[in-house]
């Protein structure tokens, strides 16, 4: 491909190739403090390419390809090329990660122990994790937590934090010194702006943590905490994992092992301050 870069996020190496310079330049800038893939071997390739040769120049639109693809991935305008690259990397993970059970969850760490947060889109797991990062927690990832079937530990996947709509201003205020990517307005998911995880998150990305607490946050309700039983947790986590079935018995062992020892709470919160207070309280009480 005409332009290319490589990088590593946690244990996963990527090579991103592009028909255009700008997405690769943006990746190089935002991921400049990240390490290179182990031994130079990449786990996944992502390709950003023009549907037809002339579409490199005329109304350039970015097709997302790679080692693993879905047939109807819609192209994005070149101005959103960075988002295309991030979506391409997520897609490889979602479709083909086989070493770790992939949990669609954010993760932060303190004292070697991990807090996981998962929930439907809009539940605030990404924003809460980013806010906790600004309050002394180590960010392990805002989108995927990697559960290692061999050790039961969580491995970090601290990709760029993907902030959407209102979360952008929340984080611009909470992390005034943070490194932000360009504002991508009018994407299929609304406005998006990426935030680079802080230096501590990048420096510690190879250090796994022991899962200590799982929360299912829900935004918009009066403050409430509810215990979630293991069977319900198990089912919800299989639904929050794109590779549970593909992992076979290793996935079953990893997940039954996790729910057997992990305290789990569903929390409702009306605003982020309440949520952060709830998190700190529960961490002190049950984790």
């Amino acid at each position, binding site marked *: 491909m005409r332009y290319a870069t490589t990088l590593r996020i946690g244990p996963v190496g990527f090579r991103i*190739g592009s028909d255009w310079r700008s997405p690769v330049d943006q990746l190089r800038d935002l991921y400049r403090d990240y390490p290179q893939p*182990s031994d*130079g*071997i*990449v786990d996944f*390739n992502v*390709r950003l390419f023009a549907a037809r040769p002339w579409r490199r120049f005329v109304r350039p639109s970015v097709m997302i390809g790679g080692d693993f693809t879905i047939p109807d991935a819609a192209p994005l305008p070149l101005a959103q090329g960075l988002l295309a690259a991030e979506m391409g990397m997520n897609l490889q993970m979602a479709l083909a990660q*086989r*070493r770790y059970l992939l949990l669609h969850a954010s993760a932060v760490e303190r004292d070697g122990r991990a807090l996981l947060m998962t929930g439907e889109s809009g539940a605030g797991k990404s924003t809460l994790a980013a806010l906790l990062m600004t309050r002394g927690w180590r960010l392990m990832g805002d989108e995927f937590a990697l559960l290692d079937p061999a050790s039961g530990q969580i491995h970090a996947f601290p990709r760029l934090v993907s902030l959407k709509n209102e979360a952008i201003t929340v984080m611009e205020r909470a992390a005034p010194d943070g490194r932000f990517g360009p504002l991508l307005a009018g994407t299929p998911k609304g406005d998006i702006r990426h935030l680079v995880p802080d230096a501590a998150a990048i420096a510690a990305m190879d250090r796994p943590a022991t899962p200590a607490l799982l929360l299912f946050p829900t935004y918009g309700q009066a403050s409430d905490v509810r215990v979630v039983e293991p069977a319900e947790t198990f089912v919800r986590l299989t639904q929050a994992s794109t590779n549970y079935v593909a992992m*076979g018995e290793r996935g079953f062992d990893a997940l039954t092992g996790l729910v057997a020892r992990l305290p789990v709470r569903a929390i409702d919160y009306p605003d982020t301050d309440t949520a952060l207070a709830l998190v700190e309280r529960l961490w002190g009480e049950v984790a």
Partner: protein
Amino acid sequence: MSALWLAMALEDPSTYDMLDADGWNAVIAAARAEQLIGSLAVRLEGLTIPAARIMADARASAEQGRVAALWEAEAARRALAPLGVPIVLLKGTAFVAAGLDAGRGRSIGDLDILVPREHLDAVEAALLAAGWEWVKPDPYDDAYYRRWMHELPPLIHRERDRMIDVHHTILPPTARPTPDAGALIADAVALENGLFVLSNEDMVIHAAAHLFADGDLQGGLRNLWDIDRLVREFVERDAGFLASLTQRAAMHDLSGAVARALRLARRIYGTPGGGEPVASDALFARRLLARDGWGRLRHKGTEFGFYVRSHWLRMPPAMLARHLWTKFRKK
């Protein structure tokens, strides 16, 4: 180049020594694009290589694919057992069910089975009753399949989301070679669970027919690897295998396809058998090895040529025109 390196590493894993990191990245991309990553991982098992973690993942993934494929066969067996009809597993599922080398690490998608043509309606009804559904009700495609193809329109299981292709022979009736479907079933070999696989010779012949007659040689490197593994294993078991293969191919009207498949397998993988090269083999080989360092197909022109050619093989010319016209209008 990447597909050539892939073929070399498959044939002789010691060639991995030549690869630097970029070389590995290219081979892995090509192997994934050709659905050969699991096969490569099996070949490289136990070697100390920088890509070891990726190969271990690929083996685990192929193993899970094997479980799912065998379960799909078992689900079909349970649904069809009351009919008392012989069910012959084809392609990847047959390789793993029979415990063949060709099944090790192989990626397996749909379940392909062969049944006697006269029982097609009963098989279809039993599958529909057991939870399979039509993939897409399209009157033209449906009529096309039923009149001209060698299989039912594909069915998908509504719970497991897996496809089944029910064949009554291994090439469309419109294709010029007409394999003897009765002999395929008569000489099929029973497995312990009551399902069947094709005889050794017919397995290779089917793989060869599949290589040239289906599609535009896409996935050809994998089909050819099937042929390599099958031939090596069967020759090892029976020194007279290549002779009986030639005889059987003639009976099925597929001598040309089998001879070319063996020549290409020898050229690309060093497979035993295969006669002296002919000039056009180079074109086929070029198409089979057309992957760049990102796993992309090169030589678009060659690809299109093969597409038209493959339809030409399968359909008499007037029908081809009608088919292309109908397909064209649907876009």
